[in-house]
């Protein structure tokens, strides 16, 4: 007989996968709408947001319930803690997709700026990133982490180049300033979406291995990852609470 607790965990797993799927579609659609100037598609993305918000609440409540009633530990604890964060990251990604969708209508005129930017490649990369994001949530396969990190870095670099290009165009033609500014905002939102995906990959590492790999700068400074499996040797915990907080 499957335990009630296992069923709750499975329910959480299913909801998280569903959320990831919907958000990935929202992001893909937002980029499609941007490329094709598809206002109808943009409207659909905005409507979808209700669904994402509902699911976000459902996942939060489920996590809260499991914490309160089952006092999870070990892998279960890490999964539920991370589910809350992944859920939050997904919801924010969805919001950025909606933010892009709202701007599609403002881009109807001066669409030549969009073609000038040659967005095709970065859009393809972002689509691939969404695919990897869904896969890592579904499979909890940490082998995908490096691919996600590498692709994210590539996308980041491309988005920066595109921003520079927009500024260059703006300087040349003042009539495109409104469109160009909206495009700049869209690039920022794409950059946020990319960043949330790396957060999600880091959360999956925590679920699977119990290691905290977030905050690349800190990881680099310490030249090591923060590892919950450290301090396994038995001795007094001489660190103060403050040190531990840090």
């Amino acid at each position, binding site marked *: 007989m499957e335990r009630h607790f296992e069923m709750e965990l499975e329910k959480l797993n299913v909801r998280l996968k569903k959320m990831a799927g919907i958000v990935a579609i929202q992001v893909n659609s937002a980029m499609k709408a941007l490329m094709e100037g598809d206002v109808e598609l943009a409207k659909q993305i905005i409507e979808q947001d209700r669904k994402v918000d509902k699911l976000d609440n459902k996942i939060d409540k489920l996590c809260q319930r499991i914490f309160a009633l089952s006092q*999870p530990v*070990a892998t279960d604890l*890490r999964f539920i803690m991370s589910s809350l964060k992944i859920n939050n990251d997904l919801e924010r990604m969805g919001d950025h997709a909606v933010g892009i969708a709202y701007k599609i209508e403002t881009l109807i005129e001066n669409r030549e700026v969009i073609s000038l930017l040659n967005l095709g490649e970065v859009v393809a990369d972002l689509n691939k990133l969404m695919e990897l994001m869904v896969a890592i949530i579904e499979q909890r396969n940490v082998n995908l982490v490096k691919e996600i990190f590498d692709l994210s870095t590539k996308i980041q670099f491309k988005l920066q180049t595109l921003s520079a290009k927009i500024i260059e165009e703006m300087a040349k033609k003042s009539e495109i300033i409104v469109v160009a500014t909206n495009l700049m905002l869209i690039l920022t939102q794409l950059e946020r979406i990319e960043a949330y995906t790396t957060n999600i990959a880091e959360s999956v590492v925590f679920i699977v291995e119990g290691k905290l790999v977030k905050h690349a700068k800190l990881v680099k400074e310490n030249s090591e990852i923060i590892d*919950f499996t450290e301090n396994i040797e038995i001795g007094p*915990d001489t660190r103060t609470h403050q040190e531990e907080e840090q």
Partner: protein
Amino acid sequence: MAEAKIRSRNLTLHYGNKMALDNVTLDIHAKQVTALIGPSGCGKSTFLRTLNRMNDLIPFVKISGEVLVDNYNIYEDKVDVVNLRKKIGMVFQKSNPFAKSVFENIAYGPKINGIKDKKKLTEIVEFSLQRAAIWDEVKDRLNDSALGLSGGQQQRLCIARTIAINPEIILMDEPASALDPISTSKIEELIFQLKTDYTIVIVTHNMQQAARVSDNTAFFYMGELVEFGRTKSIFTVPSKKQTEDYITGRFG
């Protein structure tokens, strides 16, 4: 690194033909709380009782290996078990106060150890009851029978009785398993306060209790020590699958 107060070395124990502990090597550190967890019959209570030789009382027990307390093997022939148990006090699952007054329960140990001075005894009684966080509740009824106290109070009284002998180590065998949540939380808070002065080893079936009160956790299964580590590691990232399965309730 804290110094180990107790070291068990290749400790094996048989009840007749049945092996209850299999080659257990474990360091218990001074002034920390060490929790022993594991399913029923895994050897955790047996291990606890080897630490003050309570198993000596059971017939057909055969022990090999060593238990070193302050680097001294307590299983050497010349060890005086009574003195050993003064140093290593014990609190049981079921509170077992004597059918005497609250005062007499605490004063009993010091008295049989030769303290006759009434003033000194009063001091010890007050100190022990204060230390066991029960003084405020019983200070006006020191001459009443201890059996009239609630279960939680009786258990703290038993802890005070242990403290009165001035032990260095306190062994606790499921000290809160028969108590309600409020009394349980008082015992847990008490354990937390006591570790500043005493080395505490606690057996508990309550996983959350082990997580809340202990610094280190040892997981036993079928007489073997499967995993021993910092409690915060054991409950977030256990290194052995058996430990993970046990603490997450997926055992067997």
